[in-house]
């Protein structure tokens, strides 16, 4: 089980703040997870597509495409930050 979280514009576009999902064994990196979610349908493909500038964190640390994703992790997808 992996906890997914979505913030800001992404949360609105996907209509969800997050969920807990079981991932197939081959979905074990940030990049693979993003593709896995894009396969869910048009809204997901649009929101997570490669033309979208997104940030991803794994367990509260900023992650890259090749960052591993394992059972028990918390993975968050969000737009570039705009606080301050």
């Amino acid at each position: 089980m992996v906890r997914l979280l979505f913030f800001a514009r992404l949360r609105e576009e996907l209509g969800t703040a997050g969920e807990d999902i079981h991932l197939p064994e081959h979905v074990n990196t940030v990049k693979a997870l993003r593709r896995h979610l894009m396969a869910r349908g048009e809204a997901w493909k649009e929101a997570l597509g490669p033309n979208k500038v997104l940030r991803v964190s794994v367990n509260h640390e900023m992650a890259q495409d090749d960052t591993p994703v394992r059972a028990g992790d918390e993975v968050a997808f969000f737009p570039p930050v705009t606080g301050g």
Partner: protein
Amino acid sequence: MKIRVQTENFDIATEIAALREGRPQIGAVASFIGVVRDLNEGDRVSTMTLEHYPGMTEKALAAIVEEAKRRWDIIDVTVIHRVGELKPQDQIVLVAVAGEHRGEAFAACEFIMDYLKTRAPFWKKERTPEGERWVEARESDDRAAERWQKGESK
């Protein structure tokens, strides 16, 4: 180090007094307050809503402050960032840095703001006469943060 993410307002004098308390070696306090402006991109802003990532936010801010402490000889830092619904002229963020001397305090304070702007998980949504919109990240903020990576003398 004091890091707070809160809906409540803050008072800079109270925060600086707490930061200085019992530390007579402090000679310099550099600080910054970010404020909601009434205009953004030419549109009148009536409300600004700050969203964040509870759990990650405090860690990200603490990591930025730790990095500042590694880079400069400073004594302590307070960072307060508000979340929730704010109005124009409301305070958004406070960064206060205490040190023995002003050069290090100034540099660390500006560094923390630049990194906060690009690395701490906050998002702004503003309401204007045209409706609601998410504030876009600014390229100028990325450039401001990148300065600190090039070993530029500050």
